[in-house]
């Protein structure tokens, strides 16, 4: 499945900007930004992105809660979700997998290779688990 539109969710404005430049400038994709879990739900339903990049540590609804909500809604349930986070200890990564994430990209990430990493993850990802 080719990627043309990405939803990037992070509460840090600088990271949103870096991510946007990377996905647009290197990946050549359309980018939608959201600064919270709540915004993400609304943006995902409205924009139907091909993949969602989701920060884990966010105030209010955190990344894991957001994933569960996205999965629970018919409009967004099938969109693959990739976590982007500094919290990549083994037990945490196992938990992300259990929740149904397609993959994890550790922070700090390399903006030049971020789009490539996303493509690789999606290529090895089977159909999303319910």
């Amino acid at each position, binding site marked *: 499945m080719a990627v043309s539109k990405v939803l990037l969710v992070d509460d840090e404005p600088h990271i949103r900007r870096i991510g946007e*430049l990377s996905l647009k400038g290197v990946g050549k994709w359309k980018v939608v930004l959201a600064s919270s879990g709540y915004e993400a739900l609304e943006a995902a339903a409205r924009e139907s992105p091909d993949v969602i990049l989701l920060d884990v540590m966010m105030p209010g609804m955190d990344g894991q809660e957001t994933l569960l909500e996205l999965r629970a809604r018919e409009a967004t349930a099938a969109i693959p979700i990739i976590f982007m986070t*500094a*919290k990549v*200890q083994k037990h*945490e990564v196992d938990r992300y997998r259990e929740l149904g994430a397609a*993959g994890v990209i550790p922070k*700090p990430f390399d903006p030049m290779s971020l789009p490539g990493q996303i493509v690789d993850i999606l290529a090895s990802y089977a159909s999303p688990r319910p």
Partner: protein
Amino acid sequence: MKAAPLPGDEIERLAALSEAALLDTPPEPAFDDLTRLAAAICRTPIALVSLIDRDRQWFKSRVGLDASETPREVAFCAHAILGEELFLVADAHEDDRFADNPLVTAAPNVRFYAGAPLATADGHNVGTLCVIDHGPRQLDDEQRNALMALARQVAAQIDLRRTNGRLAKVNGELVARAREAQVVIEQRKVVERIKNEFVSTVSHELRTPLTSIRGALGLLEGGVLGPLSEGAMELVQIARANTDRLVRLVTDILDLEKIEAGKLDLSPTHVDVRQLVSSLVDSLAPVAAEARVEVWADVRGDMEVVVDEDRIAQVLTNLMSNALKFSPSEERVELRVEAMAEGRVRFAVRDRGPGIAEADLARLFNRFEQLDGGGPRKKGGTGLGLAISKAIVEQHGGTIGVASKLGQGSTFWFEVPRRSVETRRNPEAGLGGSAYHR
């Protein structure tokens, strides 16, 4: 009436009596059996086990008497404890010491008294086993011997109580100490947990701004925002390289904390060593090219091992990077892998750099150890690589070491069992590892 003087061991005697914890306790068959026997054998209406306290005599067991205690001054038994033999008063009326004693002139009208001292194992007379009659009497030899024998039995009971008392006290101390130790353990667990959370939180807090910095520099360096002047590009590259170094340091520190806490988790899988080595060599190609050092790898045989691929790769990268840093240009760094006896596999990385003095070899694998001359820290290292490598290798059940001579280069080697035998510092459920999407 003549009151008995105090015995020479009065203080120790009272201590022994107190240790037995018998005073003012209810009657017990163990003692009552013996007083009944004494009364029967000596044919007296009264038999007592009398304990001489500071100011009174108190009866642990009594036959034929209602009173449970009397003042010490009037006690016949207070005289009896002064000697080792049976204390006999054939007729109290004829004895100056006792003729006007209230216990004689009024109830219970003591006329005949025979008291055998109760001697503890450590030689203190805590009281008597005595028999009393209302008329003048004698005891024959058999009765006297029997009375002494029964007294020995009573004394044995008293010693038993003392031992029990001592044991109970020690037990109490042990229980208290065990509780204290448990409190300390719980406190240490709390401290450990706070420390681990702190390290994990700090690591995350550091990585967040580093993400933005690294990202911005990466984009500039990658030309995504247009070309940069040569000078600007140089600075951006310096900044980006040092950001990468900071990120490695944060990762290494977190790794090391996990290792110290025994929380490094291995995920062993089947690994094709040739492939592992081949990717490693590829990834090192840019660094090797820049240092103008050749990388030479030799893997003997078709090798499959069961190890944590990422972690063993981490060790190999560490050793190879160090070798490349220290190798002179136009030289080569050699990686050899071979199967050893007893199901072990040996990896050895050889460089022809300056070598290491024998005195320094032992310290190498300590964390933050950096040998003089700048070395790895000057060249972008964190000083933690060898310590982490050692921990990873040892957790696989392997060994790591170095052979080196000044002026002749160094060989860093490690051996792991073909099938890693996980050997942890502490058996704790774990953290560790890397993103699973690879």
